[in-house]
């Protein structure tokens, strides 16, 4: 593979894996939420907010993919030649968010699924449930940080 293809593999991994994490997480929350709505349709707004939370991993993945695509010239007007080692550097950069995005999306979904149970009984405690979910998201944010720092550190 040439440099550019390796870099694009990185972009694909970031978008695909982090996106899968979000999709699974959102799916888990959605299942619980639908169960709650069968009892109490007025909680739709609250549950929708909770369901949106595991979506950030996918956004971080998309963001990474976009930055890589822009850097290697797939999007935009610049044409850049990417050496094989630069290509690998882009691939490495994508890994933190790809891996942590997948796992944190899923586990955030699980925490939020329990939060749905929480608001079924005590809707006023939603804030605390969100804080628990944010604890999981922290590691996706850190992974994004590592990814972005590596990306910015690559000499072109």
């Amino acid at each position, binding site marked *: 593979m040439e440099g550019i293809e390796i870099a694009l593999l990185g972009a694909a991994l970031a978008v695909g894996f982090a996106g899968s994490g979000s999709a699974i997480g959102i799916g888990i929350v959605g299942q619980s939420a639908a169960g709650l709505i069968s009892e109490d*349709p*007025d*909680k*739709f*707004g*609250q549950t*929708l*907010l909770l369901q*949106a*939370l595991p*979506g*950030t991993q996918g*956004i*971080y993945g*998309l*963001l990474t993919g*976009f*930055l890589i695509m*822009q850097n290697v010239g797939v*999007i*935009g007007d610049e044409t850049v030649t990417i050496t094989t080692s630069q290509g690998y550097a882009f691939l490495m950069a994508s890994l933190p968010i790809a891996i942590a995005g997948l796992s944190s999306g899923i586990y955030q979904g699980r925490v939020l699924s329990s939060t749905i149970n929480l608001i079924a009984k005590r809707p006023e405690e939603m*804030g*605390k449930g*969100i*804080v628990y*979910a*944010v*604890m999981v*998201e*922290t590691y996706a*944010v*850190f992974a*994004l*940080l590592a990814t*972005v*720092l590596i990306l*910015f550190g690559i000499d072109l």
Partner: protein
Amino acid sequence: MPIIDMKKVFLLGHYQEREQIFNLLHNLGIVEMVDVKSSETWDEFQSYLEPGQLPENVSQIDARRSDIRYCLDIFQRHYPIRKSIVEQFTGSSLDLTADQFASYLDSLDQVEEIHKSCCEAEEKLVSIRNEVIQSQNLIEDLQPWSALEIPLELIEDGSYTVMGLYTVNAEQYPALQDTLAANISDYFVEEVFPDQDVVHFFFSGLSEDKPVIDDLFREKTVTRVSFPDLTATPAESIKSLHEKLKILNDQKRAILSEIEALLEHRPMLMACYDYMDNEHAKHQATSNLGCTKSSFLLEGWVPVPVLGDLETAIANRTETAAIVSRDPNPDEDVPVLLHNSGPVEPYEVVTKLFSTPKRNELDPTPFMAPFFFLFFGICLSDAGYGLILTLLAVLISRKLKLEGMGKQLVTLLIYSGVSAFVFGLILGGYFGDLINLPPLWFDPLEEPMVMLIGSLGLGVIHIYFGMALQAYRNIKAGKVLSALYDQGFWFIFLNGLILLLVGFPFAGQWMAIIGAVGLILTQGRAQRSFVLKFLSGLLSLYNITQYLSDVLSYSRLFALGLASIVIGMVINAVGDLVAGSVIGYLILVIILLGGHFFNVIISSLSAYVHTSRLQYLEFFNKFFEGGGRSFQPFRAKNSYTDIVENEEG
């Protein structure tokens, strides 16, 4: 002081004036009632009191209240009042002017009648529902037999023959046929409906073979099916059942329209419910009183600033009630009311979502507010998004009459939008890169390290501030040495390490050593033996990992700030791809509007939750415990209605 001082008040009055005074307190809404029985002097005066009893009409009020609730629930079940997305967060209520409210209360005597109609309607609905379920089940049971052309009432045992409908597991059926053929001479079997799992069949045989047949059937677990009340062929029965369902459905619709006709009373019932509910609360509260035949004693907590209001209000109402107040005892369970003025006030919601402070604790709100403002701005860091967030929040606060925490939250979002706007100017974010203006300071995409180090630096300041507050608490509590040992040495130690890191080896080294030695010598001071003292002192240095991870946690400010800008850029770039033709520009506009709106919502949400997290976990854990009980005054509480000012014109 952000935490309001409370005084305990004792109100002694004439028994006859009890209701008057209660109404007054209920309207004022500034007293939290305390059960007299929990009073420390209860044992002394208990013997003087009449045994506590609820006024006789409390159960009557309760019954009426639940009648109204029953009707409203029925209305809600069949003709629900849908809430909009915003109302699902804020709650919705019916706006009534005081006059309307009063006029609705005049129809209180209609409640009984409405309740009666509702009960009847509901009863009929339940019996219809049961019949529907019954018929549906019967149809389901009949379905497999619909090919059978014998009227069901003819299928019964006669003097010479037996016959019936049977089902058997499909696997057993061939074996059953074999055994029947082997054991009985004359019989007739017809498969009516061969299901995959269960075979439905008609069987008839001679009466004299009945014992043998029964045994065979039992052996192969054959089940007899009968429809005792039906008199036509299965297909005809199904048809008539469907007709019955249609009739039932019509009946149901008729009853529902009866309920619909009652709906016009709904606002009246809502008003009456709220009235009854408050009456009920007032009467319930009397159980907290100590009463003799001609006097009553009330105990409660009142915030000091409004104590004067209470005294004048009571004095204006009656001359024969005595009111005394005293400062709380140290061991009393005093409720906590936060009061922060001006721009800090909305940040109370952040504190309250974590925990109400204890009475003698520092209210963290004013210390946390500036950081919250700052951090939220950095996380969103886009002038365009900040502007939209502020506008949205202003719109919401205009449209909805919010109270309490909802209002605080919206005001907080207004400020937060301003902060994001300012940071957008500083860092050059305008809807991502939609508007290309140079940043006032630097572009985080060009100089990411500046922003990362800046974020961590803010974190260090935040953490130090938390430590300083704990030191202040220690000193105020008279524990000056604790402040030196637990915060002072850490402060020296950490600063030494930071100096080492940024290239002042000499000063850094010595400060770190002094701090570390101080910590080793003091952190084990709770232990008994010398060895243990030393070991726990040494072990305490391990806490450095805690501080390290706390500081690193602030890197999320950078990551989120960058994320919101780059997501904006992604949206713009996607829009760029489609631009060109007329339709392309149309799509471009849709992408930009939808995409940026989406980003405002999602990025503001992450900014809010992550900023809160930094306060709760990195800041509060340095000095704040929480666990106080918030002040809950005795006051009017409406579930369904809202009294508004009379509308002009």
